[in-house]
């Protein structure tokens, strides 16, 4: 175990909730385990039709409980898991304590949130489903993904000028 001083953590965590910092350094192939989780997750996405444009339309038109059930039960299971990890101080498989970072509020969560909502209802996909959809053979979704990458880039380019 080699503690390293991380200078760009601040930059990487900016506007990103999912970054976490392990003090451990690993060879690249340790990432295979995340690939495996991704595969299982992708299969669930497709099999539960979470990535279906039709399901998303039904959700936003209150015509089906399906997506509310999926997201709601996922949040409940996630909450219980996080509570148990905190309560019993569960460590990672490498013995590190699990870290949580409080999220700060800024106007982006409102403005960006609404804009993302628009895009979600149009494409019927959030970033995860985009990857899964391409896997199912809907190759044109590559265009949506590239456009989403372009959107992220434009945000980064004009970040200073946007209200936060």
């Amino acid at each position, binding site marked *: 175990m080699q503690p390293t001083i991380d200078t760009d953590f601040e930059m*990487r965590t*900016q*506007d*990103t*909730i*999912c970054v976490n910092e392990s003090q451990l350094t690993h060879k690249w192939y340790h990432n295979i385990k*995340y690939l495996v*989780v991704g595969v299982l*997750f*992708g*299969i669930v*996405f*497709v*099999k*539960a039709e*979470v*990535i279906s*444009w039709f399901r998303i339309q039904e959700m*936003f038109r209150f*015509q089906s409980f399906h997506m509310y*059930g*999926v*997201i709601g039960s996922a*949040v*409940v299971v*996630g909450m219980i*898991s*996080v509570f148990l*990890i905190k309560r019993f101080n*569960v460590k*990672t498989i490498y013995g590190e304590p699990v*870290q949580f970072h409080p999220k700060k509020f*800024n106007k982006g*969560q409102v*403005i*960006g*949130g*609404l*804009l*993302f909502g*628009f*895009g979600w*209802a*149009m*494409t019927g996909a959030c*970033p995860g489903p*985009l*990857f*899964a959809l391409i*896997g*199912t*053979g809907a190759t*044109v979704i590559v*265009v949506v993904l590239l*456009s*989403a990458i372009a*959107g992220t880039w434009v945000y*980064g*380019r004009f*970040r200073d000028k946007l209200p936060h």
Partner: protein
Amino acid sequence: MIDFIRQPWPWYVAGPLIGLTVPALLLLGNKHFGISANLRHICAMCLPANIPFFTYNWKKELWNLFFAGGILLGGIIAAWLLRNPAPVEVNEALATTLSQHGITNYDGLVPVDVFSWQQLFTVRGLLMMVGGGFLVGFGTRYAGGCTSGHAITGLSNLQWPSLVATICFMVGGLLMANFILPVILSL
């Protein structure tokens, strides 16, 4: 058993499995479940252009790209090996609305009447795919996360800014689906 797996899975199977991704990633290596950050890592990797937001050591977030690669692979496996042969079932009211816009094909998870290479060069297709995709990428980063990062991870960790973001995702989606999308679809 295989027939059972081939059917569309109900929410009470899928939801908890998705929820378990949160502890799985935390326990495997202190990683917070989220996907939209990948779009930023791809920018940082391919076109940082000296923009401070994209100049960071993206290699440290390689796990996130592996995770996204896994989702892609999972999509391939589910679509080719566990494929549900029946067309997607759609609520009758939705089917009626959609048929007014020429959407009648339910063979895929996305309607090929809107999302296909041929449709890409129509005004409607361009708006839906390129415009919609842009909003997904721009909006998630501006909001600091997407459905996985805010709605699932953020709420699991009782972060109120994530609740605000999730509510805004829903409000934006409701406005688009009910008021703006009908106009775009009729183009």
